[in-house]
């Protein structure tokens, strides 16, 4: 693989007082790939996201972007470096229109901030086009986000992050709160973003089936450490399930259950 990783994470350690949340985590994220980050509750996935998106500074270790070392002091630093995080709650406002959500905090205006007049027509057009690119044809960009399905809201948050310059898209459990059909919509959206070729996706999930469907590369976390990593080819299905469970063998579980 001659490609250079867009984002390279090297031996990140994050301690909260006596508690070690991350103990030397490394991963490489390539443009045009989906990198699944899997692990049980408490494995350190959320902490890793927060380090990558500039919410927490790592205790030690280094993040590289396009080969250059970077230090994020705030979420804004991370965002400027091209890391767009789509959190589980999506950061959308249900009472506001699709367009107003899309440009929230980054409105297009003519005139001095913050009292410049909104260029609503232009923003409507961009919102409609960007949503269409990612697979949703919204008939009315002025409709309230509250009328959209969970999958569409997810898509809105993803389209917004990409439009405002995200090169690495961190999706925090994007399928976990959705129904079956909407989960498929989100997976399709991810594959459309992947097909662009210039954006890397970090896909945090509990769901091994989803990760096998879309991911090119896997990293498994357990108790703050990487317990397995590799490409889709390198890992067999059984491996994935075993690593998902934090290294526990399903056979052991079967035996334990039988003994009860």
């Amino acid at each position, binding site marked *: 693989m001659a490609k250079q990783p867009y984002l390279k994470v090297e031996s990140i350690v994050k301690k909260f007082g006596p508690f070690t949340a991350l103990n030397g985590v490394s991963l490489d994220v390539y443009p045009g790939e989906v990198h699944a980050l899997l692990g049980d509750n408490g494995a350190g996935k959320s902490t890793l996201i927060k380090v990558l998106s500039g919410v927490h500074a790592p205790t030690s270790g280094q993040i590289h972007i396009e080969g250059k070392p970077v230090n994020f002091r705030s979420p804004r630093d991370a965002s400027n470096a091209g890391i767009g995080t789509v959190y589980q709650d999506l950061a959308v406002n249900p*009472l506001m229109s699709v367009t107003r959500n899309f440009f929230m905090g980054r409105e297009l205006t003519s005139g001095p901030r913050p009292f410049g007049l909104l260029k609503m027509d232009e923003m409507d057009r961009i919102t409609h086009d960007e949503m269409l690119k990612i697979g*949703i*044809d919204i*008939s009315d960009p002025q409709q309230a986000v509250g009328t959209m399905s969970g999958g569409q809201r997810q898509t809105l948050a993803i389209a917004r992050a990409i439009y405002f310059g995200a090169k690495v898209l961190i999706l925090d459990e994007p399928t976990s709160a959705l129904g079956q059909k909407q989960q498929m919509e989100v997976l399709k959206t991810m594959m459309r973003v992947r097909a662009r070729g210039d954006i890397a996706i970090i896909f945090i999930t509990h769901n091994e089936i989803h990760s096998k469907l879309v991911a090119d590369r896997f990293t498994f976390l357990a108790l703050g450490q990487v317990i397995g990593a590799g490409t889709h080819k390198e890992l067999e299905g059984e491996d994935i399930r075993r690593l998902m469970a934090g290294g526990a063998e399903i056979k052991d579980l079967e035996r334990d259950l039988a003994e009860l």
Partner: protein
Amino acid sequence: MSGRSESDRLKQESLLMRLVRRPEAGAFFVMVVVIVLVTIASNGNAINPLGIKNNLAIIAQFGIIATGAALLMIAGEFDLSIGSMIGFAGMSMAMMLKWGLPFGLGEATPASAFFITLAMTLSLGWLIGTIVVRSGLSSFIVTLAFLFGLRGTTEVAFRLINQSTQISGLPDFKQEYFFARIFGGESFGWFYDLWFALGGNLNRRDEQWVTGLDVRVVWWILIVLLAYIVLNRTQMGNWIFATGDNKESARANGVPVNKVKIGLFMFTAFCATIFAACQVFDTNTADAAKGNLKELEAIAIAVVGGTLMTGGFGSVIGVVFGAVTFGLVANAVFYIPWIDGSWYRVFVGVVLLAAVFANERIRKRITGGI
């Protein structure tokens, strides 16, 4: 796949249905009913030349403070200090005009009294906003503290300096100062001149009866226009909606949530100061009790106008309809002799409760809830 997408499930509606479904629709309907009822019950006296002037005087008063209260509520906060701020600002201006500027700086003019007062009230608005956003306490409690504190301060200052909680018999500054006419003078004289020229607007001796509206009507229109444009057409407006809808997501997207809130607390203080200035320069009096309970009327009008108690949604135009409704009913006792004025409060209670239910339905419809 049948080629249907989820967006197809949102039906396109006719223009009429869209208008009926607008958040202002209920307030508009109530306003029309009230205008018709008051007009009939008063034998048309409520809309004769003097009736229009007197009704618009109180409607404009309500409208000025309710617009400020509504913008703040859309951003998710309350201001219960509006009424006390009116009393404080009126006291401050009248006291300077009677006793001179503080620290022995000499005689006050209407302009200096107004601007020094405005500087104080804006600072108080800033202080209230800063306490709310820094402490994370409910604005209900913080502004309730200022409701009591400011009213008490006003009374104490009156008694210390003036020996009485009222000032009356100030010179009529409108005669001499243009600046006093900006707040206490008349406007829309052309409207009444035209009415007279067309054969109406006559008194018993067939002379022109009413010469113009109170100038506060112009202030109301200006504040409404400003609020409408800022809320619906500017970046700041998007920030106000975002702050009230979901503060955390607004912050995550780079909206300066705290500055928005502090700015709006200053805006309600500004509206209260305009209210007080119009009152002081119109009547040349001040009273420590001025503005009592006005904060609750402002909030009630904002709610009747379609503003959600929980923030994130509301309409400046709806607040206009609400102000007209409340002003007409509050004044109805002067035009309908047989009515007991206390029915006004009964009306406020009933309409308020109905509006809260209606707003809740609107909110659920927008958010797709059941």
